[in-house]
Structures are given as C-alpha cells and as structure tokens.
C-alpha cells in the first residue's frame, strides 16, 4: 500500500493525535457500513447456511445438511452451476477478444476516433430492463432482427434458431448479448496499446517479423497485465451473472427447460420465492469459495503469461 508523501515538517504529539482522531472520523462511515452491511451479514449467512432458516420461524441447526443436499440430491444445483460455467467459458474470452479487436483497430490511426469511441462505449451505459427487452425483441424468432438477417442470407425457415424459446439457443443468445456490452472494454486495451514502446516494433520489423507475429510476441505480452485484469474481473462478474435471465426467460424462472437457470437465479429463487434462506446461504458460500478458488488459480497461472515490466502496475 502506498502511503501519501511524507510531510516535511515534524509536528508535536498533540497535533498528530488530533490528526489520527480525525482520520478515524473520516473513515468511520466506511468502517461502520462495512461491518453493518458486509461483515455482519456475511457472518450471519455463514451461520444460516448450517440451519434451516426461513425468516419466519426459528432457525434449527442442521449441520452440513444444506451442503449435502445441494451436492448430492439437487440436480438443479448442478444444472445451474453448469449454465453459469457455460456462460463464463464463452462470454469472458469472447468479451476480451471483442474489446481487444476494437482497440487494435482504433490504434491504426483511422479517422473518426471520437465517433467510434462514442459508439463502442454506448452499450456500457445501456443496461437494465429496457435493454433486455430490446434484446428479447432482437432475438424474436418470427420477426426479430437476428432471424431477419439470417433469412436474408438464405437460412431456411425451419432451421432458424428459436433463441430464447429453445434450450439449445438461449445461452448462446445471452453470450451474444454479452459481447455487445463488452465492446466498451476497448478503452482499457487502447490505453495499454498506446503505452507499448514503438521501438520494440521497429526492431521486430528489422528482424523480419510479420504483423501477426509482432502482435503475438510483442503486443500481447506488453499488455498482458491489462488482459489479466480483465480475466479476473470478467470471471468474477460472469460467475455472478443471472439478472438478465430474470427478464428474458419466461416468468423469470430460468427457462426454457432450466437452460437459463444460472446459479444466481437459482439462489434468488431459493431465497426469495421459496424462502429457504439456509439453503440459499449455503449456495452463496459455495459461490464465494468457487470464486476464490478460480481467482487463486488464475493468479498462479498468471505467473506464466503475465509480463510486468519493471515494477508491478
């Protein structure tokens, strides 16, 4: 942790104590909020995960039963985990690829940078129900934009995907949606691309390395910290993805045939439709552990491919 620059003047003890006192006053809102809305609730939820708590009646200790039920007797738990894994595996790399592609193209000194930046950033601010309804309309099997496009290029009527009405196509539709939103990620990569020293490319040219090789051997390693950062944050976000399914699936139930029953949606259902708070709390902790394990693995793997020049960023 970097401390602020040391002040030149030495001060008396009284003044320093006064400063410390003020310091606590200033960070108090965070500390109180953190204890009241994060630490406290988390500890309670850990306790609740070992009970059959349902808000209205008294909680009875059930030991590991919630966890055992989830792992051993609940196929929907595994189904939801699988759906989330599917979404994560496709949306994270594709999202990074989209952002990186746009950034690389913008880095070619093409005209109209301002306009392009505006357009590509727009999806980032468009979230919420309104946009999800738009996507529902875009993927409408009969007259939606996507199927109209497929018709126009000659896809026969009977092989057009039914998207959100077909268990095989509902998740791909959500992944396509996520790629649309991921365009805004170009900003990070562009900043990183601009920071790559030019002389590296010049010497590679002299060695006769072609463009693609230069991209793989110079660009990617030089911006790898940014990519790594996006991998970590993207994974965390994708593992928690579910809110979209609440709007696009019929009745918000994760259909068709549980194909959009993401982990979070199942947790939401367990907690706020069935009010099985004990089981839902157990699910929350399973998710926390999964997130931490995946992050730890990524941190380990990053040692092999992330290149930090000089000091860490």
């Amino acid at each position, binding site marked *: 942790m970097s401390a602020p620059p040391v002040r030149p003047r030495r001060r008396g003890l009284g003044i320093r104590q006064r400063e410390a006192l003020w310091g606590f006053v*200033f960070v108090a809102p965070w500390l109180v909020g953190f204890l009241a809305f994060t630490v406290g609730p988390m500890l309670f939820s850990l306790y609740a995960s070992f009970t059959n708590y349902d808000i209205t009646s008294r909680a009875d200790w059930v030991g590991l039963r919630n966890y055992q039920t989830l792992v051993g007797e609940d196929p929907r738990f595994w189904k939801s985990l699988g759906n989330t894994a599917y979404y994560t595996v496709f949306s994270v790399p594709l999202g990074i690829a989209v952002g990186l592609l746009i950034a690389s193209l913008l880095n070619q000194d093409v005209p109209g940078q301002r306009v392009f930046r505006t357009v590509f950033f727009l999806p980032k601010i468009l979230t919420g129900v309104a946009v999800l309804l738009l996507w529902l309309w875009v993927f409408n099997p009969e007259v939606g934009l996507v199927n109209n496009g497929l018709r*126009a290029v000659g896809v026969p009527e009977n092989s057009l995907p039914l998207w959100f009405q077909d268990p095989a196509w509902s998740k791909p539709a959500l992944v396509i949606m996520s790629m*649309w939103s991921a365009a805004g990620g170009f*900003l990070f990569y562009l900043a990183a691309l601009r920071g*790559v020293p030019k002389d590296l490319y010049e010497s590679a040219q002299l060695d006769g390395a*072609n463009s693609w090789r230069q991209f793989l051997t110079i660009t990617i390693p030089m911006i790898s910290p940014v990519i790594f950062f996006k991998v970590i944050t993207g994974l965390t976000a994708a593992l928690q993805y579910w809110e979209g399914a609440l709007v696009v699936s019929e009745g918000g139930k994760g259909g068709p045939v549980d194909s959009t029953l993401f982990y979070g949606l199942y947790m939401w259902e367990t907690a706020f439709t069935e009010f099985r708070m004990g089981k839902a709390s157990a699910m929350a902790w399973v998710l926390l552990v999964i997130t931490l394990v995946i992050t730890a693995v990524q941190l380990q793997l990053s040692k092999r491919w992330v290149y930090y020049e000089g000091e860490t960023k």
Partner: protein
Amino acid sequence: MSLSRPTPTVKPSGLPVGSTATSRALLLLWRVLALALLVGISLLILYPALWMLSTALKSDAQVFTYPPVWIPSPPQWHNFVDAWYGAPFTRYTINTTLYALVVTAATVLANSFVAYGFAKLRFPGRDVMFAVMLASMMIPGMVTMIPQYILFSKLGWVGTYLPLVVPSFFASAFFTFMLRQYFLTVPNELSEAARVDGASELWIWWRVVMPLATPALATVAIFTFDGTWNSYVGPLLYLNDEKLYTLQVGLQFFRNGSQTQWQHLMAASLLVMLPVVAIFFAFQKYFVEGASLSGSVKG
C-alpha cells in the same frame, strides 16, 4: 524490411521514415481495411438501437411484416404517448429520479469523505483498513444480498426505499478507492497551509480538496446516477407497492401485464433509456475518464 509482407499492423506512426511508395500504399490499404471493420462493428452495435426506434414508430400491423419495414410511414408517434399512459410511468419517473438523486448525492459525499481520510490523514491501522477495503471488492454481491435482506426485513424496511438508499450513505470500496487515488494528486502543501491557518479537517476536505477534485467527483456522480437509474434487482426485491416502483421495475410489470405490444414496449423502453443516454452525451468525457480511472481496479 521485406516489401512483400504487409506493413506492421500496430502503430503505423512508428514506421521507418524511408518507406517506399509500395509500403505506403500497403499501409493505406491496411488503414482502409481497419476503418471498414470499425464501421462494420459500429453498425452491429447500433443496429439493435435503430431497430428499437423503428419498432417504436410502427403500427401494430407493420411490426410483424416481412421483409421488415425500417422507416415506418407514417411514423406512429402516438405510440410513445400510448405507452406512457399504459402504466403510471410519470409516477415511476418521479420515484426513479428522486431515488437516483439521493443515492448519487449520498455516494459522492460519503465516498469523498472517506477518501479524504485515506488520502490525506495519517492514523494507526490506516493501511491495513485500506487493504481490507480493496480486498472486499472481491466479495460477490450475491453473498451479501440474502443476509442483507434478512437484516432489512428484521428492521421492517422491506417495502420502503430505505434498504436501497441507506447503504449509499456509507462509503463503498470502489468509488472510495477511485477518489482516494485522485485526492493523492492534490498537493499536500495546500492542505498544510490551510491547517497552519487553523482550518479544521472538515473545512479542508470541503473547501480545499473537494473543489480541486471536481472531475473525479463528477465521474462518481455520473456513474452512480447511471447505475441507480438502471438498477433492477434491488428495487424489485425491496419495493412491493406499485406506487413506489422505479422505471425498471415498472417497465417489467408493464411488459407482463396485458398482451405484449412490441411497438409500445419499445417506445416505453426508449423513454426509460433516454435520460441515461442524454447524460452520456452531455458528460461523455467523464465516462471515458472514469472508465480509465477505474481501469486499475475494476472492469
């Protein structure tokens, strides 16, 4: 350098000065290609939005015609009016605006207050607390959602705006971190000088540091307003009286109620998005700034 190869894809400005006409032509070709690709991707991004506008202006019959009509004639502007009065959207707008304004004001105040403490004051345990705060960003929101709901239901707050608004009066890790980084760039000489003149820390925070941090504060305000305006799950969870609904929740109920008429649904959705889009175009530079500022912490 071999001329048969395409010119380097990256940083054309860094090309050797003595390039021949051929390599200049290749470079030009490459840029044209990049431009064409960018235009293509832009269209893919804009298409859904244009489709939305087009649908909102269609008549009931035109919505389902194939090949699709892109420019409905005559445009059915009354769809917007019909959609607006199809549900209590005026009330939802008032609710949402108040909700977003209160949360935004509280977030800016609380986060800058805490950030001042972390950036400008020395006290025991500061760096440990700061590290804990950073680490807390890794906790999935879903883990705290359930116990928070239990807490707020025990407090009798479910059905009111309190669970949605009160937490914003306590600083959040992300924006506090962002503002702290910005406050560090404000020279300490200024606060020192004020302190020598007998100014209190509160005065220095409010009158010295805050005015110098306007761009960062604007970024926090805009992101918070945007996020609150678009938030859906929180309001859905805590508000159960239709009079209290926000636009996002109201829109979802508007959709579920009665037969879905796409032209009305798209018209209503457009109106709901409008303020956010307007803010985006008015304060674009703060969005971009915020995105790059947050680049060091969060995507």
